[in-house]
């Protein structure tokens, strides 16, 4: 099967000089990549220790049982973000928040739901964006940097809540979504506009406490006696209390693992795999050497040693 090395006079085949260099180079690559992998993974771990603890980060509590569907929040959002008026059924490039009504078929059960960015604790969009245009700020809100975005739409695909949206009328579109009114000091525009008290802004710790008090004071009122977003999908900064089942108001059945948890092990492993692959190939290259080639390599080796001595 194997042609002898001496038969390989062709130009693109292996020459004698490269063989030993190759082994050295792959060795260096193996070590280098593995070290680089360890370093970047450590850097990743430390970057997740945020300056502001989770319970002190900005958050929003939406109690659907208080919501009357007046849609003042939608208007306030449009005004504050200078967005076009439009009639849509889902979040879009010009609609960052939307109130939708769920009604059971027999009409006995109904609930509103406010759709908007959930500002996940470990956001899928942030981990998926190849150029880092989406970022989890220290204060809590997930922010979007339009100047970095290349428009690959992986964030739209990865977001379990279907939040990032395009302005499809543009030839060269960008993503748009809620930023929890990052620049406002008096809380998000939607929350200040909410008169029935369905929206409360505050720190995540405060809001969870309020939500849990409400659950404790009104047994049986809230679905599952829990807050959506405390742990779902790794936790969110937009917390929801609902009188009806979460899946009925369109909330996805997430486990306590965040979306990044699903894929991150694979991405983390990449540098090690690269290192391993390089090592494997060096071994394969070595192992498939014919006896003759090996002999010649040994000869060269001893010659070199002789020279240095």
């Amino acid at each position, binding site marked *: *099967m*194997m*042609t002898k090395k001496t*038969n390989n006079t062709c*130009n693109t*085949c*292996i*020459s004698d000089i*490269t063989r030993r*260099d*190759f082994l050295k180079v*792959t060795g260096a*690559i193996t070590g280098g990549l593995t070290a680089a992998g360890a370093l970047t993974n450590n850097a*990743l771990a430390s970057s997740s220790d945020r300056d502001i603890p989770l319970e002190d980060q900005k958050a929003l509590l939406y109690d659907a049982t208080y919501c009357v569907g007046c849609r003042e929040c939608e208007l306030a959002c449009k005004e504050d973000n200078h967005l076009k008026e439009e009639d849509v059924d889902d*979040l*879009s490039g010009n609609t960052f928040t939307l109130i939708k009504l769920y009604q059971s078929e027999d009409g006995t059960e109904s609930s509103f739901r406010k759709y908007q960015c959930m500002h996940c604790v470990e956001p899928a969009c942030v*981990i998926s*964006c*190849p*150029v*880092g*245009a989406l970022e989890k700020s220290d204060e809590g809100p997930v922010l979007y940097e339009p100047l*970095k*975005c*290349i*428009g*690959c739409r*992986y964030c*739209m*695909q*990865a977001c*379990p809540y*279907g939040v990032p*949206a*395009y302005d*499809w009328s*543009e*030839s*060269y*579109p*960008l993503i748009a979504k809620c930023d929890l009114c990052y620049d406002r000091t008096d809380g998000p525009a939607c929350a200040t506009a909410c008169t029935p008290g369905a929206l409360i802004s505050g720190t995540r710790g405060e809001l969870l406490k309020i939500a849990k008090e409400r659950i404790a004071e009104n047994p049986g009122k809230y679905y599952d006696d829990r807050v959506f977003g405390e742990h779902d999908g790794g936790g969110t900064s937009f917390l929801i209390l609902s009188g009806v089942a979460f899946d009925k108001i369109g909330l*996805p*059945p*997430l486990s306590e693992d965040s*979306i*990044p948890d*699903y*894929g*991150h092990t*694979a*991405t983390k492993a*990449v540098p090690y*795999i*690269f290192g391993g692959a*390089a090592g494997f*190939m060096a071994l*394969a*290259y070595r192992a*498939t*050497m014919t006896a003759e080639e090996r002999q010649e390599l040994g000869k060269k080796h001893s010659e070199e040693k002789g020279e240095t001595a």
Partner: protein
Amino acid sequence: MTTITIPRIKKEIPLSILLLAIVALLGIFAMGTRWIYGLGVVTNLADTRPWGLWISFDLAVMAFSGSAFSIAALTHMFRRYKYHNIARVALISGFVGYISAAAALTVELGRPERLWHYFFYWNTHSPLFEVGMCVITYLLILTLEFLPILLKKLEWHAMMKGIHFFEIPIVAAGIILSSGHQSSLGSISLALPLKLHPLWYSPTLPIVFFISALTAGFAMAILVGLLGLRFFDDWNFKKGVFSGLGRYLLIALSITLVLKLGELVYAGEFNLIFENSYQSIMFIIENILYIAPIIILLIPKLNKSHPWIFRAGYLAVGGLVMHRFNVSFVGLAGAKYFPTWQELLSTAGLASIGIIIFWVIASNIPLMEEEH
């Protein structure tokens, strides 16, 4: 000073290439409509269906460009030198494949003019970053691998020697980079546990993508090699090259199949195959397209005959194309989607451009090593 001879394109152009040229021109026209009118007008994509035909095309083409690394590994790392000629053919087809995949990004991305952001804004957590980086570096490596062939034709001997010195490290780096990005293509879908149908979603996706890229590589090398024998008079391969590739294809296909079905059994999702939905039917077709070539390649007489190896090759290619399409839109939850004529035409155009570039290279640069 040595004289530089620049190769001229051969005068006689076959009819098939002319037809492809027409498709290519129409494709460029369709791509133009996207640049002028935008994604919203030209495609059927939506916020709930952000990826369509172009992404699936990219995934499929990149899988077949796996021919470059699978045959290179076989020839140079495992020293099966009889595959040397087919390795060069595979190198060129991989090179061309990556170029058309990259060209597809110029219509697919919302902001194609910002592709250079990949170099400046890194998000090392993102599998898509991994893919992009590996593809860009790998294209560079492929160019370096291709250069000796070109330089020989141009008779630039000094430069050729320079590149030649680093040849094995270059080949090795190419194999590592493409293995990395092929599996990262699978990792992309790991972030979609709720959207991707359980028939395809599995934590083993990166491994499935890697093995199936190897498989696609062998299948593609068989197809291109056997088709090329008809088109190019100077093409020649050592005896037993295709039955050998057939054997590797058989092994790789079997591993892919066992891995995919085994995962379903392990996860207790095997019964989903019989749920009689759109997805399950597509899954069954995909797997038949793996099993059929396995059967062909297992039959002793057929796995020696070129026409049958060729058939096994294109069945496998069909199965792998389906896998990439299934993962990137059939199996993905979202709005109903069928590509527009602009999407279809530009994809056909991009494929034609790839084939034309391959033809130009193959008919002007001697890819075959002389007998020695």
